[in-house]
């Protein structure tokens, strides 16, 4: 009972249970308002429980900060949902949030596997709730791939102590699926933009980060991850540059930044690992802010409200400005790379960061966030959400070293200067002359997003072919058996009739025949 019980209850209710409960309520009840109220209640309850959890589970400050960040995102999502009601997204987000907390706190692989499946389910439904055929396809592909990863994790958990190399391979495969490591990264780019604006907020925060932090700890120091991460970081940045749809570009940037985290995991040193978590936190904060901005624009059908520019600017700055969230983690990982004698990789990361800043921060700000005369202001909710996020960002940015001791390296001269140069160069790209020559179109370089949802859903149809074949074999076998049965039956009947039919004379003849046989047998 030990493993099962621990996996389930680990001594008490799972962490995040108030959020899970709130999510179920939000799902079951038709009224959006009640759903959001339940969400807020759950959020507060969960936050109140966090200190106890920290004490009981001996959480590191970084992990604690990550958990608080999760709560923050949930709150932001609920706030934003007030803008344009989205019941499934809210319910899914609450459940995903609660499950994320439980997953982080899970102490066994089985428990972790269970909770990440819950996150995957909730997230898949958030995607599918987007409503368009694209969302359906992306959501189904998302679910199938994530469940595959979950199955791999379950197998790994089942293997337990035996076959350690196999377990590691399984974990690696699951990790690649969950963290969108190429070549299985396309689901993210397809799914995240397809969800509703509120949905994207929740999606970006939980699933991948939980995987990075928890599974990353298990795979720390695996050299291939270092290179894969760098490829991810650079490779994903390219389509991002040319993507016209803001949320899709943000998704590419998410993959890119995940790449940086993956590289950090590949390094495996303590400072790199701290950098990974710090970057994760930072990334959550700034990407939520950017998704918020993009979402604000979308729910108003592209007509920018007043105040959006401020929102967008703050989001853009959060990406890499020292003092705000995004910088600390990246700098830490960069330093770790330098210590690993890969200074060039550090520059790569910085450049990528700058590109992200330019593509998903500056450019949309400049090109799309200008309000028309007489446009309404952003709502109080959005403003509040922005304020919360920026506050969080500042806290993490300025006080990073408190939670991640090694992060103080971010304030050294070297990284600061490099970052300053990079950001300035990035700003230069906003010069109209450069900007005009920088092409952007929707679904840019789509062929780089592998695997396509259609392939995954197509696999189902493909398997149906086998099913048809088997059905046909079954039908043929049935028909054959029936035919044999019928023929056999007819033969039987004919013989039986032959023995029974005939008139009186036949009867007498049979009697005489039998007598003859009996006599022969007796004397033979």
């Amino acid at each position, binding site marked *: 009972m030990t493993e099962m019980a621990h996996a389930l209850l680990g001594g008490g209710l799972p962490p995040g249970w108030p959020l899970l409960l709130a999510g179920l309520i939000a799902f079951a009840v038709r009224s959006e308002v009640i759903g959001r109220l339940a969400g807020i209640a759950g959020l507060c309850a969960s936050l109140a429980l966090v200190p106890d959890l920290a004490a009981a589970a001996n959480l590191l400050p970084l992990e604690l900060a990550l958990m608080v960040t999760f709560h923050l995102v949930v709150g932001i999502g609920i706030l934003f949902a007030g803008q344009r009601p989205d019941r499934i997204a809210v319910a899914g987000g609450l459940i995903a949030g609660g499950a994320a907390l439980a997953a982080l706190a899970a102490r066994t692989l089985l428990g972790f596997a269970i909770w990440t499946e819950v996150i995957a389910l909730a997230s898949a439904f958030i995607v599918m709730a987007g409503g368009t055929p694209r969302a359906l396809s992306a959501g189904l592909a998302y679910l199938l791939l994530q469940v595959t990863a979950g199955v791999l994790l379950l197998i790994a958990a089942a293997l337990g102590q035996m076959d350690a190399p196999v377990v590691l391979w399984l974990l690696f495969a699951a990790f690649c699926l969950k963290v969108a490591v190429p070549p299985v990264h396309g689901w993210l780019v397809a799914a995240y933009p397809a969800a509703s604006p509120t949905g994207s907020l929740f999606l970006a925060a939980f699933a991948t980060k939980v995987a990075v932090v928890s599974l990353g700890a298990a795979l720390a120091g695996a050299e291939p991850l270092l290179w894969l991460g760098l490829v991810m970081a650079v490779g994903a940045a390219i389509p991002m540059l040319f993507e016209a749809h803001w949320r899709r570009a943000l998704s590419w940037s998410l993959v890119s930044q995940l790449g940086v985290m993956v590289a950090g995991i590949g390094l495996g040193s303590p400072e790199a690992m701290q950098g990974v978590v710090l970057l994760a936190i930072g990334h959550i904060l700034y990407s939520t802010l950017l998704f918020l901005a993009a979402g604000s624009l979308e729910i108003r059908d592209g007509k920018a409200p007043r105040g959006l520019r401020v929102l967008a600017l703050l989001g853009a700055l959060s990406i890499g400005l020292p003092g705000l969230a995004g910088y600390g983690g990246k700098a830490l990982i960069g330093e770790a790379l330098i210590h690993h004698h890969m200074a060039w990789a550090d520059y790569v990361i910085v450049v990528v960061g700058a590109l992200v800043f330019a593509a998903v921060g500056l450019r949309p700000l400049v090109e799309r966030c200008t309000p028309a005369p007489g446009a309404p202001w952003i709502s109080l909710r959005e403003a509040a959400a922005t304020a919360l996020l920026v506050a969080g960002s500042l806290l993490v940015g300025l006080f990073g070293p408190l939670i991640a001791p090694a992060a103080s390296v971010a304030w050294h001269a070297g990284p600061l200067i490099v970052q300053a140069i990079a950001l300035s160069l990035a700003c230069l790209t906003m010069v109209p002359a450069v900007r005009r020559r920088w092409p952007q179109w929707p679904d840019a370089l789509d062929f780089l997003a592998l695997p396509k949802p259609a392939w995954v859903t197509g696999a189902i149809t493909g398997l149906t072919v086998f099913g048809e074949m088997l059905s046909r074999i079954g039908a043929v076998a049935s028909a054959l058996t029936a035919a044999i049965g019928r023929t056999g*039956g007819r033969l*039987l*009947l004919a013989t*039986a009739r032959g023995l*029974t039919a005939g008139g009186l004379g036949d009867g*007498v003849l049979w*009697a005489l025949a039998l*007598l003859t046989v009996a*006599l022969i047998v*007796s004397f033979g």
Partner: protein
Amino acid sequence: MSVLDHAPVLVVVLPLLTAPIIALLRSARVAGVATFVVAALDAALAFVLFARTLDGSVISYAMGGWAPPIGIEYRIDLLSAVMACLTSFSAALVAWFLPVSIAPEVTPGDRPRLFAAFLLCLAGLTGMVVTGDLFNVFVFLEISSLATYVLIAAGAGRDRRALTAAFDYLILGAVGATFVVIGIAFLYVVTGTLNMADLGNRLPLAGKRAGVVGASFLFVGLALKTAMMPLHRWLPNAYTFAPAAVTTFLAMTATKVALYLMIRLAVLVFGTPDEIGRINFATVLPPIGLVMLIAGSALAVVSADLKRLLAFSSIANLGLMLVALGLGGAAGIAAALVNLINHAVIKGGMFATVAGIVHRRGSSRMDSLAGLSREMPFAFVFLMIGGMGLIGVPLTAGFVSKLLVVKTAFDLGQTMIAAGVLLSSLISVVYVWRIVEACMIAKPAKPGRRHDVHPIFAAPMALLGVGTLALGIEGGPLLDVATRIAAALTGGAS
């Protein structure tokens, strides 16, 4: 000497002598009642015999005080008593509803003679099982056969083909009886005695040739009476066209008595429980039995008439009995006996139900059964119970029968035979399900109102139906009796 001490002979003489009296009665109603009373008394006498032989003793009764082997001896052991109970109880049950059942088919003037024929048949059958004299067996065989021909022909009131059926049976039955008497003659020639026990003592010492010839004739003659394939042709038509009540009686007794004779002759006369002369049961009977099982069931599947279906089903079940007998040894004989009794109960119940249905609806054709489950639920229930018994559903007597045969076969290592028996039960599912569908699923041409069987049929149907279930739930007692009989037969024979 009380009356009961004469029970061995009374059990035969009572119906034999009352038959002519009843034939002369004017009132059909009185004749019918008298028939039942006689049959009931006969059953009581048979029960007394059973009670007295239960401990294994053998009652020997010398007719007229003349000692055997010169005099005719009535020799009753447990097996004879059980068979006598079978014939007389069947007769009593059938006699209960016979008058009502044949009323539509036979004119009141002819009925007393029919009842007389019925009692003569009973006398003949009972006589065959209680007598210890071989020629006596032949005499009673003829009495019962002649009476049977009349009984079958009585069905002409409903269907003229009964006459042809009776005629066919007459000719074939005569052939069989002739073979039997020739066989007896051969045995008499070589041993000089007709007493079965005495024959058993003298035959080994006598000439081989004549004994073997006699055995062959006897075997073929009995085979015909037992409706062993390929000499079974008379049975389907006889059962189908005879009046339903007559069929009930015949199905419960006629072929069973012939089978009894085969066992008795093998044990007592030839001294070898598993062969008659050179004809070895183990080699001959199982193949024939399996063929009967399969062919009989197959033909039942395509029968358009319910009585014909049940007739073929009887052939199939006879095959099962032959298979059991062919397995040999005490276990085989015990299994055969259990099968015999169980089948009599099951088939009797079904035919009694059919008699009730025919009496109400006028036809036993399958397509006229539509709507039975709604209009005659009582009859339907008992038809179903019987049907389940035929398939061998657990908790019915049929399952016990089948289980015993299969287990015995497995015990003796005869897996092929066991497989054959199991496979043939599949075919029985098909024809029983035809009945179920005909009654329950088929839509009647015009829906009738609820009009169940005449009350007089209720008691026999219920008794036999409950018996089917009781023998299926607690088959121990019957198996115990059968085992004792088998042990006595195989242990005693030298």
